[in-house]
């Protein structure tokens, strides 16, 4: 772990050294020339025969399959554009984006990025993204709630059209109902009581693992109240004062965790495996349809059902953005539009591709599409769309997330 840190620091230093040198000879016409996009129809015309890259998380084989089997063939057939899917962790993508920007505009390999939250905040701060693009994507205007909160803010960061919503996510718990005879723990207090009665049967993935970090934030919001966390200053000392009851709660919970909280699973896949094996009684996911998906795959048994906290669970969206250094912005625009189109997204909502929930506005969809999406919820122990929407809390602001993660490490992990 420590070694990795070292490397990043060294990389950062090199970049910092290069930064002033590159700034000096950068001309102001950075957006001009081949790298500019005007409208989708113009982009379709100029991008024929081009290759476009899609960079994003590659650890979900179903999402990968969807890109390979649905998006890529459609792009080739409709627009004669070749799609290259590059599976990559977001830290590496941000590193590469930074380098490509330093090398000058319109020369980079990265075209479309799957991104959200603190990574979007970082990318936007460092001016790595091209935009605004949302208003040029017809799928966004025609199918989504353009004035909705998640169209304007990503983890509290103003989007300003630099991202197009791509998928919905909400933290959802899953449990085997036979192991919760008194009902699922729908609050942090009930969860603690359950853990005390069943020591070693609960655990969570250690932040900064993406979903584990959300679990910790969700617990903190449940204990302290979302509004307080939202209004807290984004400094370590200020935030600590506000979220201390939440951290105390996690410390109280710690001895009753799996392995007495001395060790945590590293990925949600491990968490799922431990749950499926009956080592622990509860799992969670950012995908609201997770339990249905796993039941469909026969990995979870049919007694497994989803539940939420009464006060709500953290919900956010993930997005598609365009790299400022992209050398095929026209093809990138066509790809973003295709990936957020009704036909592609409805496919993504199928079991085969992981039951992903589209970021669409129900009022703008055809009755048939609406019916298809509603039907997904009507089975296999997942909360209804209405319940999901009712029990939602927004994401904590992006810049507070690394602070909360480091406070967790300091006061819970190492305590």
């Amino acid at each position, binding site marked *: 772990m420590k070694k990795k840190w070292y490397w990043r620091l060294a990389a950062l230093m090199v970049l910092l050294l290069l930064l002033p040198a590159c700034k000096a000879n950068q001309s102001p016409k950075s957006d001009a020339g081949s790298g500019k996009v005007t409208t989708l129809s113009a982009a379709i015309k100029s991008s024929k025969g081009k290759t476009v890259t899609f960079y994003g998380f590659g650890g979900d084989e179903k999402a990968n399959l969807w890109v390979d089997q649905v998006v890529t063939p459609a792009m080739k057939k409709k627009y004669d554009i070749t799609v290259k899917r*590059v599976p990559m962790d977001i830290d590496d993508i941000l590193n590469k984006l930074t380098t490509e920007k330093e090398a000058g505009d319109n020369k980079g390999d990265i075209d479309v990025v799957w991104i959200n939250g603190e990574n979007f905040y970082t990318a936007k701060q460092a001016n790595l993204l091209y935009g605004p693009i949302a208003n040029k994507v017809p799928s966004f205007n025609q199918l989504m709630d353009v004035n909705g909160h998640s169209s304007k803010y990503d983890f509290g960061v103003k989007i300003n059209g630099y991202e197009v919503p791509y998928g919905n996510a909400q933290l959802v718990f899953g449990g085997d109902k036979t192991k919760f005879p008194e009902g699922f723990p729908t609050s942090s207090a009930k969860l603690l009581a359950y853990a005390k009665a069943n020591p070693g049967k609960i655990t969570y993935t250690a932040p900064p693992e993406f979903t584990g970090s959300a679990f910790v934030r969700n617990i903190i919001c449940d204990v302290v109240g979302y509004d307080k966390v939202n209004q807290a200053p984004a400094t370590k000392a200020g935030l600590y004062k506000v979220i201390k009851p939440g951290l105390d709660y996690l410390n109280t919970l710690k001895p009753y965790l799996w392995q007495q909280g001395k060790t945590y699973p590293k990925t949600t*896949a491990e968490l799922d495996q431990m749950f499926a094996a009956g080592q622990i009684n509860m799992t969670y996911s950012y995908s609201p349809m997770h339990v249905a998906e796993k039941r469909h795959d026969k990995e979870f048994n049919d007694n497994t059902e989803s539940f939420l906290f009464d006060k709500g669970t953290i919900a956010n969206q993930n997005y598609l953005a365009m790299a400022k250094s992209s050398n095929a912005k026209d093809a990138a625009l066509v790809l973003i539009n295709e990936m957020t189109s009704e036909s592609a997204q409805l496919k993504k909502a199928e079991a085969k591709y992981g039951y992903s929930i589209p970021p669409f506005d129900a009022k703008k969809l055809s009755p048939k599409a609406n019916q298809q999406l509603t039907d997904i919820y009507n089975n296999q122990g997942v909360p209804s769309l209405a319940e999901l929407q009712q029990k939602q809390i927004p994401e904590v602001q992006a810049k507070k997330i690394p602070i909360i993660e480091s406070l967790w490490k300091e006061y819970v992990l190492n305590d």
Partner: protein
Amino acid sequence: MKRTSTLLLACFLVALPLVVLLLWTVATQWLYPALIPQQFGGKVLGQMLQEPNFWPAVLNSFVIALATTVVTLLIAMPACKVLASQHFISQQLLTFMIYLPFILPAIAIVTSTQILFIQWHLTGTFTGIILSHTYFTLPYAMQIILESYRKMGQGYALTAKSLGAKPWQILKTITWPLMAPGIATAAGLTFIVSLSQYLPTFFIGGGKIMTLPLILLPYANNGRFNLASAYSLVFLLVTMIGVLLLKQLIGGRHHGARN
């Protein structure tokens, strides 16, 4: 008797991780605390073969590793010949210099290389990837070949020269046969190191050129052990084919290996 049991133990220790990889690959259900998977099937293999980048990645990995080996040897052989016989730089300082690429952080080197390579239009090309791999494989090859040159000494070559042999004759009939085991080891190691490179392939290749580690790592990092295991086995197979092929080509037979 004792020798046999030691040998068996060694075999067991080598085979155990392989067996686990194999089991993960063919398992469709493997839950704690079962020692072996509860269900078997070809689902994972199917998923792997469905990946459109699978065959290109295998081919690219192989070609890049092979080319890197050739480039590395082309640089390392003459360089080591000179370095082994010179007295300007102390051998200790030399070792330090050879190991420098390991001391500098890879990410710093890779990111700054990318900036240069973008300007030289080398990103997204095989040439760029092979060059960046060579940087990381050279220390291994140099160290081995340098040692081979030192062991061989200059005596044989000098004798041949004084008898009127041409440089290429010396290389063909004296240096190469004598050094073949060392060269074969260096080549094999270079091939393995190049094959497992992730950062330079990603940064310089930009995902336009896929290799096996680029597909494998996201799965391994995110706990998809079955897919990661399947790819690891393919990885292993490619490595073995490559190393054996190089051994055959170079023809290095260890002295006294067959007596």
